[in-house]
C-alpha cells in the first residue's frame, strides 16, 4: 500500500511520518504541496510543522495549495487521510473536519509524553487499537486547543467521531479534552498528538503510535 506524505514549506515531521509508514510495512511516497498530483497513492498523511510559517492562521494558506485540492477531492470520495498537528489544523481549515484549533489556553508551547484514550477504534486510522485502549504518544503544540460550538461537540460525541481524548489534565485547553476527531465516514482523521514520534523503542515514549499507520494498511474499517 502506497501512503503519500505531503511536504509543505515549513513542514517538520514529514520525514518521521514517512519513516513511520515504512516501519508499519507500507510504502511512503513523497508528495509536494505545489503539485496537483497524488501520484496514485492509497492514503495521505498531512504531517506536523508550521506550514507557510503559520501565517494568517495555522493551516489557512496550506489549505489552498495545489495538492490540497486533490487531497480534499480524494478524501470526499473515501480515501483515508490523516492530519497530524498542523495537518489537523489544515483539515479543519479545509472544512474536511469541523471545529478549529486555537492557541493553548495556558499560552505556552507544550511538549510531553501524553496519555490518550482511543475512543473510536473503527476509523481508517485506529482499527489496530482496541476500543478504549490507553496509549502514550508525544504531544507538542502551541495552537492545539480544539474548539467547536456545543452543537458540533454534541454531534461529534453522539456520532462517535471523537477518535482520541486526553487523559489526566487537559494539556492545551481542548474542549471536552478532545485530541482527535474524524469525519462522518471515518476515513478522515485529525489528531493533535504525534503518533509518528512513537513508533520505535529507541527514541520516544514507545511504539504506541504505530497502530495509526498499521490501521490504514489493514484497510478494514467500518
Amino acid at each position, binding site marked *: 500500500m502506497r501512503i503519500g506524505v505531503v511536504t509543505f514549506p515549513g513542514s517538520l515531521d514529514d520525514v518521521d511520518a514517512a519513516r513511520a509508514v515504512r516501519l508499519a510495512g507500507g510504502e511512503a511516497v513523497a508528495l509536494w504541496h505545489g503539485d496537483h498530483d497524488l501520484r496514485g497513492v492509497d492514503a495521505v498523511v498531512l504531517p506536523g510543522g508550521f506550514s507557510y510559517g503559520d501565517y*494568517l*492562521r495555522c493551516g*489557512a494558506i496550506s489549505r*489552498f495549495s495545489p495538492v490540497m485540492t486533490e487531497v480534499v477531492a480524494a478524501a470526499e470520495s473515501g480515501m483515508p487521510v490523516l492530519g497530524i498537528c498542523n495537518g489537523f489544523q489544515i483539515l*479543519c*481549515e479545509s472544512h474536511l473536519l*469541523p*471545529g*478549529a484549533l*486555537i*492557541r*493553548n*489556553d*495556558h*499560552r505556552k508551547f507544550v511538549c510531553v509524553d501524553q496519555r490518550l484514550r482511543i475512543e473510536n477504534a473503527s476509523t481508517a486510522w485506529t482499527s489496530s487499537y482496541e476500543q478504549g485502549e490507553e496509549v502514550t504518544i508525544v504531544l507538542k503544540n502551541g495552537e492545539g*486547543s480544539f*474548539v*467547536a*460550538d456545543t452543537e458540533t461537540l454534541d454531534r461529534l460525541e453522539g456520532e462517535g467521531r471523537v477518535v482520541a481524548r486526553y487523559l489526566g489534565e487537559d494539556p492545551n*485547553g481542548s474542549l471536552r479534552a478532545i485530541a482527535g476527531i474524524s469525519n462522518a465516514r471515518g476515513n478522515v482523521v485529525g489528531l493533535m498528538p504525534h503518533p509518528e514520534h512513537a513508533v520505535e523503542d529507541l527514541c520516544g515514549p514507545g511504539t504506541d503510535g504505530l497502530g495509526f499507520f498499521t490501521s490504514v494498511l489493514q484497510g478494514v474499517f467500518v
Partner: protein
Amino acid sequence: MARVVVDVMLKPEILDPQGKAVHGALPRLGFTGVTEVRQGKRFELEVEGDLTEERLAEVRQMAETLLSNPVIEDFTVTPA
C-alpha cells in the same frame, strides 16, 4: 484606487489567550482600569477602480474564504 479595511475578531465565546496576556501585562506597566482585552487582525486592501457594491461583495467573499475562519472569527468590511 480605493481602500477597504477588513477587521477580524475572535467570536466573543472563543477564548483569546493573546488578549489575556496583553491584559495581564497592562497593570504591570502601571495601566489600570482595563477590564478586558481582545486581540484581532486588521487587513487594509487597496483595490483597483471604484468601490462598487460588487467589489465590496467580492471583498466580503475574500474575508469569508481566507482572511477569517468563520468557525471561530467574525469580520467587518469597511470602506476607508
